[in-house]
């Protein structure tokens, strides 16, 4: 069930350049069904900014009723969000959308994340390991100063890092890592900028995989038709999917990127 709750801030830290980790506590956490779901956050109480901001659930702890959001302070809303202090409250709507499906069979998964697409993969990786999967990670960042969580991913499985300027890990993109390392896997999971997802779709053609998409949103629950995408099997037609409610996670090949 989707709930709207003023969640308590347990901690709020800057973990990289313009990257913040926000830990929230509340009953909303009990409703989280799968890694990859997101929440819609209202920053401030007034009309400035007016709209909610969609942010992925990076990970959550059912016992403590806590969830972690990791976001980049970019525009008006997220910059304002950084000012929220411990023990203050944040207006959150969620959990929203459908997350990554993590079936029980013990297999090997390759998780590929780019920039602020990395956060939801952490919760996913933990869940997969919990379910007995072997996990490998490829994390792409602009440069070292904006990178985060490499160590945490490292604890869960083999982790490659690529940065555009080579300041951390290998120089280049996640796709370069794949071509070089040729990691073998059964299923891949990816979240990041659309160009990266497109490149992966080509590079990993034929492989089973799931990708998480980003779109500008209004309602976040499927009512306003702001976040609609064409399906690959009907690129021109009127059939569609809504990123907010049908996604943000889709099987690779389902959606026209």
């Amino acid at each position, binding site marked *: 069930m989707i709930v709207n709750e003023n969640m308590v801030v347990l901690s709020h830290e800057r973990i990289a350049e313009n990257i913040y980790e926000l830990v929230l506590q509340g009953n909303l956490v009990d409703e989280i069904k799968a890694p990859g779901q997101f929440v819609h956050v209202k920053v401030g109480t007034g009309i400035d900014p007016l709209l909610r901001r969609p942010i992925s659930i990076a990970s959550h702890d059912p016992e403590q009723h806590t969830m972690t959001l990791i976001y980049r302070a970019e525009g008006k809303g997220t910059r304002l969000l950084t000012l929220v202090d411990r023990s203050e409250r944040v207006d959150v709507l969620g959990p929203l959308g459908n997350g990554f499906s993590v079936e029980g069979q013990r297999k090997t998964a390759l998780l590929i994340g780019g920039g602020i697409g990395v956060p939801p993969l952490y919760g996913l990786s933990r869940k997969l390991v919990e379910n007995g999967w072997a996990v490998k990670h490829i994390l792409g960042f602009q440069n070292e100063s904006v990178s985060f969580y490499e160590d945490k991913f490292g604890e869960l499985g083999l982790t490659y890092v690529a940065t555009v300027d080579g300041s951390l890990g290998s120089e280049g993109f996640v796709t370069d890592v794949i071509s070089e390392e040729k990691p073998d896997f059964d299923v891949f999971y990816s979240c990041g900028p659309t160009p990266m997802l497109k490149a992966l779709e080509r590079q990993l053609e034929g492989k089973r995989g799931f990708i998480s998409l980003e779109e500008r949103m209004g309602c976040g629950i499927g*009512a306003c038709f702001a976040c609609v995408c064409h399906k690959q099997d009907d690129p021109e037609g009127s059939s569609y999917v809504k990123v907010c409610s049908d996604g943000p996670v889709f099987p690779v090949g389902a959606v026209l990127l």
Partner: protein
Amino acid sequence: MKSLQIELPGLSLKNPVMPASGCFGFGREYSQFYDLSELGAIMIKATTEEARFGNPTPRVAETNGGMLNAIGLQNPGLTGVMENELPWLSQFDVPIIANVAGSQVEDYVEVARVISSAENVTALELNISCPNVKTGGIAFGTIPEVAKELTEKVKEVSQVPLYVKLSPNVSNIVDMAKAVEAGGADGLTMINTLLGMRLDMKTGKPVLANKTGGLSGPAIKPVAIRMIYEVSQQVDLPIIGMGGIQSAEDVIEYFYAGASAIAVGTANFVDPFVCQRIINELPPLLEELGVEHISQLTGRSWGKHESSTVHST
């Protein structure tokens, strides 16, 4: 709540609060949050003859105190609405106002003819004012003569009362209102969105794929209030007001201006419970103001007396 019950052409409203077209889909999503039967009515998403995908994305952008949208009338088409959406909605005890859109007169007429026959559609909202469709649209919403003729044609085929939704993007809103009144409209809904645009700092290009979009939200409320104030004094039709409503206080301001009911759009995205909240906040607020019935407030800004709805029912 007796103090909120209102009778308008085709509409027996428990209360004068309803979600605005396009901001509530066909109700399914918001039914997760509260019982849709609590609403005064529901204005469903614009319906066109054929199913439409709408515009490419991005379709929304935020602005100061408002937002831009260019959805492009995406909808499952007349058949889809008749076969799936309206039957689903019939489980709720709430009148449906069907928002009718098209590119040319024939489309409008056909959609109106069919959809007005649905058992739970008790009124039509003629959308002559969508700023986001390339063809047609604009002329219908800005040229009085054209609006009048379309109203007449649609009125002929409609089995339920007809409300015409006015666009604020005109030099003279009163002329438009009088034209559709002459065309036989049973009521007005206003306002639709103001045509606006936002450009991306980095690229310099429009944020919306459609380039321009419709401005909605708190930012446009003063324009809507002004237009309803002007129109309600010049035409003898009930007005369902909308534009930036977020609270019970906003609702009262719309009634003062001359509205007989109101719709909430953008605010649903910020607070999915907003319509329910407003409905609950109204009775105590009316008591504070010392009025027995909300309709007594209609037109108070220009000195209109008592229930504005009588004459129009």
